[in-house]
């Protein structure tokens, strides 16, 4: 670092830190205790509203009617399967009765809405000369005998529950469990995780046996599983620490340095968690990535420090002087790199989704904290402890050697190697570009996209989708009218047209709404004559046909009736198609008094999220690259240099997009930030390497010598940084939560690829752009 002003400021800071070392340690200790206390209060939460783009018009519409729609969605289905036979079996029925009773008493269950063959609200009905007759599906005086089971079978058939509560193959039956978001007795909010656990212990664990299998699905169960999975990820953190510990030791051969780097990095994580708790932000399944990143970034910078201290010790400096010199030497490069990380993360704020914003804030805070702990605290600590003799001896031993790998990388400054490398890169780039065209928005797998396709939840979900007539991909259009007008004839007739229009949209399986209930009601009050399966213009007749409206199909003041559209899947293409079809209808039919508003339901929300993601995608890339280019330009003042550093990053971005397409990972809330993180952190390598290249060139060396010089000084650290970062996030690949695994795969790929890109393409590009030619 020849910049005198930088030296001067570094000198100031250096004096500030090192002349009064002990008080600093106390300050750091107190801060750690204080923030540690707050960090321990942090709990993962999986709030739905944070994962969705709350300002999108679909979501705004959804929020307007959220309470009205609550009873529609917040349901858990417990399918009880008889493994060897059908459900008309005395022992099975007894178990079913016990399970129904068990669920009845779980807190949070809306008891009056609970439905199973054993609840009195599940009835059969028949039209006779006198009108309707009916009764509970379980016959009076049921005793498990052949006759009563036969009667049960008859009642089930005429109850209309086949495909609904009873599987199409009669081998399983559902206990339908509506939940109260707020407990009407205590006023407490439903604790999803606790509820989900109760279902596991009181139902699945207790009743699952050789011939009975329990399948559970529903939003509450999904959230419970998500939080449980997220907590499991905490364990991965320990794994990441263990692996890093081993690597650090092999790198330094000094336990003292190893533990100090680890400790400072863990302190950084504690501070980061403590601060986000203090500013009222939370940690969610997405931002859980941040502690891993902060830890890895902390370690990578810590390595630079202990590396420098080791070299200084070999050079003969004492403990304090070695630490001071290390600080002095790394202060600028470290700060630039960390600043670019932090600013890179901040660009994520352009995406209007709360979890991503939380992730951006948490990551920026984390990086800022690393500056204090690993550039500040670590050198002070090392000035007390010093590198162990073992470490110094190892450093001395390897100093004279030049690693064969570095010789290899240095070759890329020669024209032949440079142009071959660029040629290969171009071919790969073409591969990436071609494949990235197939990159899809949104989630591509069946079932709940948050979890892995083979998770138990998704297996249970698949069981219910296969055996019952219900899709779990639901798109809700809200038919909004003036109060008391939701079932006015004109409105119903337009909804009928809309429903039929939607049923004819590809990707739509079925459409249900109060219109269907009215038509069924007409069919019923006209003695089951299907010739009456139509809406009637007479309002009294309509009201009569709607004497029994299932929960949630109209709201309290009758100003909104949801039209529920069941979809084949939740692929982005399907959702776009459905949205376009609704827009198309709204354009062709504009009736005063009725507005068809998108969108609620899991698929409606996903459609909104997809459109926000799609819009944010290029905006985010523009921002993150803009920031990186600007930072590099400020640091190096050369467009050619900026090109040398940024082009390998762009190469990695394109390659990772190609990889996403090939692996079937869509662009979604989880993966969109990854690209920004990859670029933000990836630029570190370039900055480190190029700062040394610049140093060499200014000393008049040839490009090749310069690059060798640079690799000698930073190559090892760059390699190590790439590996620690990759390991930090690679543990995520094993997360039970699908999107965390996707993040893990992509980040690991990007960190490694960025490292290789920096080591190979920077020299090759430097050759191409004739950087330093004038000196050689």
């Amino acid at each position, binding site marked *: 670092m020849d910049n005198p002003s930088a030296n001067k400021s570094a000198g100031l800071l250096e004096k500030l830190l090192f002349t009064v070392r002990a008080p600093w340690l106390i300050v750091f200790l107190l801060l750690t205790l204080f923030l540690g206390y707050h960090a321990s209060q942090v709990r993962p939460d999986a709030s739905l509203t944070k994962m969705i783009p709350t300002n999108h018009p679909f979501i705004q519409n959804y929020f307007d009617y959220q309470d009205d729609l609550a009873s529609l969605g917040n349901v858990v289905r417990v399918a009880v399967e008889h493994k060897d036979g059908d459900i008309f079996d005395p022992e099975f029925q007894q178990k079913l009765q016990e399970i129904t009773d068990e669920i009845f008493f779980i807190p949070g269950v809306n008891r009056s809405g609970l439905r199973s063959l054993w609840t009195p609200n599940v009835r059969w009905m028949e039209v006779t000369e006198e009108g309707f007759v009916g009764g509970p599906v379980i016959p009076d005086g049921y005793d498990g005998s052949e006759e009563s089971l036969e009667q049960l079978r008859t009642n089930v*058939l005429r109850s209309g529950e086949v495909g609904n509560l009873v599987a199409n193959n009669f081998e399983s039956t559902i206990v339908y469990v509506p939940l109260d978001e707020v407990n009407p007795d205590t006023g407490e909010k439903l604790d999803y995780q606790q509820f989900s656990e109760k279902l596991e212990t009181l139902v699945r664990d207790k009743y699952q046996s050789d011939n009975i299998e329990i399948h559970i699905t529903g939003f509450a169960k999904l959230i419970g599983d998500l939080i449980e999975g997220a907590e499991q990820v905490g364990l991965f953190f320990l794994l990441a620490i263990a692996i890093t510990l081993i690597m650090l030791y092999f790198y330094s051969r000094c336990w003292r340095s190893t533990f100090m780097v680890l400790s400072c990095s863990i302190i950084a994580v504690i501070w980061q968690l403590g601060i986000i708790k203090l500013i009222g932000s939370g940690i969610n399944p997405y931002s859980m990535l941040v502690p891993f990143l902060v830890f890895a970034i902390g370690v990578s910078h810590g390595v630079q420090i202990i590396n420098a201290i080791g070299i200084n010790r070999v050079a003969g400096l004492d403990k304090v002087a070695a630490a001071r010199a290390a600080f002095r030497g790394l202060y600028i490069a470290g700060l630039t790199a960390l600043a670019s990380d932090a600013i890179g993360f901040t660009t994520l704020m352009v995406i209007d989704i709360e979890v991503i914003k939380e992730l951006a804030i948490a990551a920026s805070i984390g990086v800022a904290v690393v500056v204090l702990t690993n550039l500040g605290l670590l050198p002070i600590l090392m000035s007390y402890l010093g590198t162990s003799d073992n470490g110094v001896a190892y450093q001395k031993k390897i100093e004279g050697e030049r690693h064969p790998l570095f010789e290899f990388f240095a070759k890329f400054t020669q024209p032949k190697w440079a142009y071959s490398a660029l040629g290969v890169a171009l071919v790969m780039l073409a591969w990436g570009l071609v494949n990235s065209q197939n990159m899809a928005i949104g989630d591509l797998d069946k079932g709940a996209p948050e979890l892995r396709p083979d998770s138990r939840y998704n297996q249970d979900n698949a069981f219910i989708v296969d055996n019952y*007539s219900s899709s779990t991909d639901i798109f809700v259009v809200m038919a909004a009218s003036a109060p008391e007008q939701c079932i006015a004839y004109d409105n119903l007739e337009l909804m009928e047209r809309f429903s039929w229009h939607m049923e004819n949209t590809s990707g739509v399986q079925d459409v249900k709404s109060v219109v269907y209930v009215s038509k069924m009601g007409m069919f019923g009050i006209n003695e089951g004559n*299907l*010739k009456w399966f139509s809406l009637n213009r007479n309002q009294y007749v309509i009201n009569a046909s709607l004497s029994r409206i299932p929960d949630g199909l109209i709201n309290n003041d009758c100003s909104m009736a949801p039209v529920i559209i069941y979809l084949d899947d939740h692929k982005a293409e399907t959702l776009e198609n459905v949205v*376009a079809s609704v*827009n198309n209808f709204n354009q062709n039919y*504009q009736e005063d008094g009725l507005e068809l508003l998108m969108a609620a339901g899991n698929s409606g929300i996903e459609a909104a999220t997809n459109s926000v993601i799609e819009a944010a995608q290029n905006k985010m890339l523009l921002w993150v690259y803009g920031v990186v280019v600007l930072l590099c330009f400020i640091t190096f003042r050369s467009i050619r240099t900026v090109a040398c550093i940024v082009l390998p990053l762009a190469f990695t971005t394109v390659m990772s997009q190609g990889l996403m397409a090939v692996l079937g990972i869509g662009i979604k809330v989880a993966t969109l930030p990854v690209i920004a993180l990859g670029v933000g952190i990836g630029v570190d390598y370039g900055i480190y390497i190029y700062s040394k290249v610049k140093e060499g060139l200014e000393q008049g060396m040839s490009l090749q010598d310069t690059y060798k010089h640079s690799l000698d000084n930073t190559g090892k650290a760059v390699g190590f940084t790439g590996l620690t970062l990759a390991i930090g996030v690679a543990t995520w690949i094993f997360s039970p939560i699908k999107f965390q695994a996707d993040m893990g795969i992509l980040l690991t790929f990007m960190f490694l690829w960025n490292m290789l890109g920096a080591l190979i393409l920077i020299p090759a590009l430097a050759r191409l752009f004739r950087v330093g030619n004038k000196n050689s």
Partner: protein
Amino acid sequence: MRLSLTPLGVLLGAIFSTTVLAQEGDTTTITDYEVISAPVLSSDRIKSEVLIEVTAVGPRLVAVGAHGNILWKEDDDWQQADVDTSVLLTSVAFANEQIGWGTGHHGVIIKTEDGGNSWKRQFDGFELMKLEKSYYEKRIAKLNEQIESSDDEEVVGELEWQVEEAQFQISNIEVAEEEGPSKPFLDLYAKNAREALAIGAYGTFLKTEDGGESWQVISHRLENPNGYHLNAIFGQDDDLYIMGEAGLAFASNDGGESWETLNSPYRGSLFGGHVDNEGRLWVYGLRGNAFVSEDKGQNFTTIDTGTRVNLSAGTTTESGTQLIVGHSGTILEVDEQLNVTNRTHPSGSVMTDILEVSDGEWLMTGRSGLLHWPAKITEEEALATQQGAQ
């Protein structure tokens, strides 16, 4: 940024939903949607959507159902007819291979002159209201004349009651004028290319003698003081029958000019009937009730159907057995000795009509659209089965 998405969505929609657009085609925005005059939507789902009746006409099969849907088939696959209404169609009947009528809700009657390819509205509930209003007004005038000229107090009392009744009907129509037509036609009998009879809810009974250009109310020809629904009209040559709500049963032996009230075998609703090759009358209705008459409805024999489900419609096979369909996938086959074979279609669906396609091969309509026996589980039928079960 978010706003700019909407046109993008529309653009994408235009690409993806070309099938929907092509048929809905007209870009004019509808601000006052009326199901009576809304043209039918083109649909791929028509075969699995509600269908009510199917009939054979020459080499063709024609089926009608929900949303104004009409399907026809000659050799290959079913085609969707061009129809200028979207109401639920309740029946179809042909006078010859070219000319046929269909009836539907909201008082709609449609006609085809090209064997079923295209259908035009001839009549709707708004016209029905006008027609019925003037019918009752004329009737009141006529009754008043009779009252004037009569001395018999008993007769006058009866006539005055009838005047009141007609006035009540007029006030009903005046109420209905506010909200629009609500009466559906439920069945139609085409005597020939000029003459047809249409029946419907609340005792509605109409005839045409000019191929549907004009219709007359002839409700007074039936003894139906309670205005019960008339569900089915069918027959052979001049022997015609009407079955209705609460066991209503009428017979005519002069092609519908005069009607005799039959001694009904059942007090519950009768939904349908047919006359077999030997002139026997078969009728059926609520709760598995079915009857046969050898003497044009003077005496009925009860058939032991062994089922309690609603029976909707029936037909005679080549081999002389009777097929009757109803709810819960029920298909009854009745032989000469009145023995009943009870088959259940796997869909378990509500069925409304049955037709013999070839020996042992039947085509049914109903809640799940077109169904076949022996059951062909095609993808569509599997879907229909699922939906029907819901």
